[in-house]
C-alpha cells in the first residue's frame, strides 16, 4: 500500500476505525470546548491534538479532511501523531520527542507487497503449500459464524492432540486444548472465544462473533503421551460461507511439538499461514518461539491461567 502522508484525503478508507467519523453531540453552551475526539482516541490521527486549540470551538468534525497536515503546527512540543503511516518516520530514536521530524514519504521497498495476497473464496478450497503458505479471510469470513479448525487424521498418525496458544485483544494469553482439560479460551469462560472439541476428529472452534477479541493464535499438534507421531492427514479450516482451507500434515515422523498454522487478526481480517515447524522440546518451548512470552507456566505444558 502506497500512502502519501501529504494527501490524507487520498488515503485508503479505514473501515476498521469506526471512530474516524462520529456524531457531534449537542453540548450545553457553557461547556468548555474540549476536544471533540472520539471515545477511542488513542489511535485517532492527530485529531485530539489539533483539537486542543482552545481559542475557539472550531468544528473539527470529519477526520479525513485535507486540512489535516496544515494544522500540524511543527513548533508545538508534541510528539508526532500516532497515525500509522507516520509511525515509521517516528522510529528515528536519535531525535528527541520534542522535535517532530519533518514528515518524509515512507521508505520504499521492503514492506510493500510484491503481489496481491491470496484470498480465501467462499465455497471453494484453498490448498496451503510451501510456495503459497498464506491466505487471507475477508472481514465477513472473519466475522460471521464459527471458524472450524479440524485435524482430519487417521489413527495411524498416533495419539494426536491439537491445541492453540492464543492472545486476546485485552492482552490475555494462554493455551486451549482438550489435553489437560483446558477446553475453553479464556479458561472457565462462560462465553469462550475458542473451544476445543472432538467429533470424529480433534477440532478447535473460533466464535467469530467475538473475532475482534482475538489478536492471534498458533495451532499446535503433539502426541498426548509424548511419543512419536507418524504425520499424515490434513488440517482443514472451514468458514460459515464454506471457504475451505487445507493444510496437508505431511512431514517426517517426529516427537515434540509441531506448530501447524498461525492466524493473525490484521485489521479485522484473519491472515492464515502454514507454519509446519517442529520443536524438539515442550509446548512451552514451541509457543515461546512464536513470541507468546506473556504466559505464566505451571509446567512445560500447562499455563497457570
Amino acid at each position, binding site marked *: 500500500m502506497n500512502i502519501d502522508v501529504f494527501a490524507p484525503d487520498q488515503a485508503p*478508507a479505514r*473501515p*476498521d*476505525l*469506526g*471512530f*474516524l*467519523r*462520529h*456524531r457531534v*453531540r*449537542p453540548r450545553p453552551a457553557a461547556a468548555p470546548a474540549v476536544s471533540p475526539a472520539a*471515545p*477511542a482516541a488513542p489511535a485517532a490521527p492527530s485529531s485530539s491534538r489539533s483539537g486542543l486549540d482552545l481559542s475557539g470551538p472550531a468544528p473539527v468534525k470529519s477526520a479525513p479532511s485535507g486540512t489535516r497536515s496544515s494544522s500540524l503546527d511543527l513548533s508545538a512540543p508534541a510528539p508526532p501523531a500516532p497515525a500509522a503511516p507516520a509511525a515509521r518516520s517516528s522510529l528515528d530514536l536519535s531525535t528527541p520527542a520534542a522535535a517532530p521530524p519533518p514528515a518524509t514519504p515512507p521508505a520504499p521497498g521492503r514492506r510493500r507487497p510484491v503481489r496481491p495476497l491470496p484470498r480465501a473464496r*467462499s465455497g471453494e478450497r484453498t490448498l496451503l503449500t510451501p510456495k503459497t503458505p498464506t491466505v487471507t479471510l*475477508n*472481514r*465477513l*469470513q*472473519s*466475522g*460471521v*459464524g*464459527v471458524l472450524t479448525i479440524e485435524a482430519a487424521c487417521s489413527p495411524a498418525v498416533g495419539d494426536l492432540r491439537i491445541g492453540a496458544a492464543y492472545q486476546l485483544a485485552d492482552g490475555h494469553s494462554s493455551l486451549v486444548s482438550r489435553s489437560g482439560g483446558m477446553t475453553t479460551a479464556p479458561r472457565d469462560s462462560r*462465553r*469462550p472465544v475458542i*473451544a476445543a472439541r472432538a467429533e470424529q476428529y480433534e477440532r478447535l*472452534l473460533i*466464535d*467469530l*462473533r467475538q*473475532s*475482534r477479541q482475538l489478536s492471534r493464535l498458533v495451532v499446535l499438534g503433539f502426541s498426548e503421551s509424548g511419543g512419536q507421531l507418524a504425520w499424515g492427514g490434513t488440517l482443514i479450516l472451514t*468458514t*460459515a*460461507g*464454506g471457504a475451505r482451507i487445507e493444510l496437508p500434515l505431511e512431514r517426517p515422523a517426529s516427537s515434540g511439538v509441531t506448530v501447524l498454522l498461525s492466524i493473525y487478526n490484521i485489521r*479485522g481480517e484473519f491472515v492464515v499461514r502454514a507454519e509446519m515447524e517442529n520443536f524438539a522440546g515442550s509446548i512451552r518451548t514451541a509457543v515461546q518461539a512464536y513470541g507468546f512470552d506473556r504466559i505464566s507456566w505451571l509446567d512445560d505444558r500447562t499455563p497457570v491461567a
Partner: protein
Amino acid sequence: MAVMKRGSNVALTREIPTLTGLVLGVRWDAGAETALTDNLVVATILCDEHSKALSDEHFVFFNQLTEPSMTVSQLEQAMGPDAEQVEIRLDAVPTEVSRIVVVLYLNEGMGLRRSLGQLRECVLRVLNLADNAELVRSENLASTLDGETALTLGEVYRHQGGWKFKVVGEGYSTGIAGLAKDYGITL
C-alpha cells in the same frame, strides 16, 4: 412519538426537508437470556435498485464498521438506550445506493440452538443525526417471532428524489445464510 407498524412507511425528507442524516437504533430485551443477546448482530446492507448488496464491502457490521463511501457507519459503542446504532449521512449516500436495509441475526455460536423468538422486545428507532431527536420507531417486532434466526428490521430507500423509511419485520428461519443469499452477499 410515532410508532409504526410492520409494512408502514414514512416520507422522511418530505416531512423534514432539513434532514441530512439519520441514526438507526436497535434495542432489544431478552430478559436473562444473555446467551441470546451476546450473539445478536445488527448489520446494514447498502443495496442497488434490485435490493442486492453493491458488494460484500457494503455489508456493515461489527467487523466492518463502515463501507467504501463511509456514509453508513456502525458505532462501536451505541449512545443512549439502544444496543446498536448505525449512522447514515443521507446527503452523501452515493447515487448507486437505492436502499439501506437494517437486519438483525443470531450468530450461530458454539452449538447453542437459540432463536429470535426468545426476544421479548425488539424495536428499531430512527433519530435525526443532527440532534439525536427520535423521529419514529417501529412497533415491537419481537411479538410475532418464533423460530426465526434472522430478521429484516427496516429500510431507508430513495423515493421521488427523497428518502423514505419503512418498517419491514420479516424473519428468516435460515439465519444469516438465508438473509445473505437474498441480498446477494457472499459469506
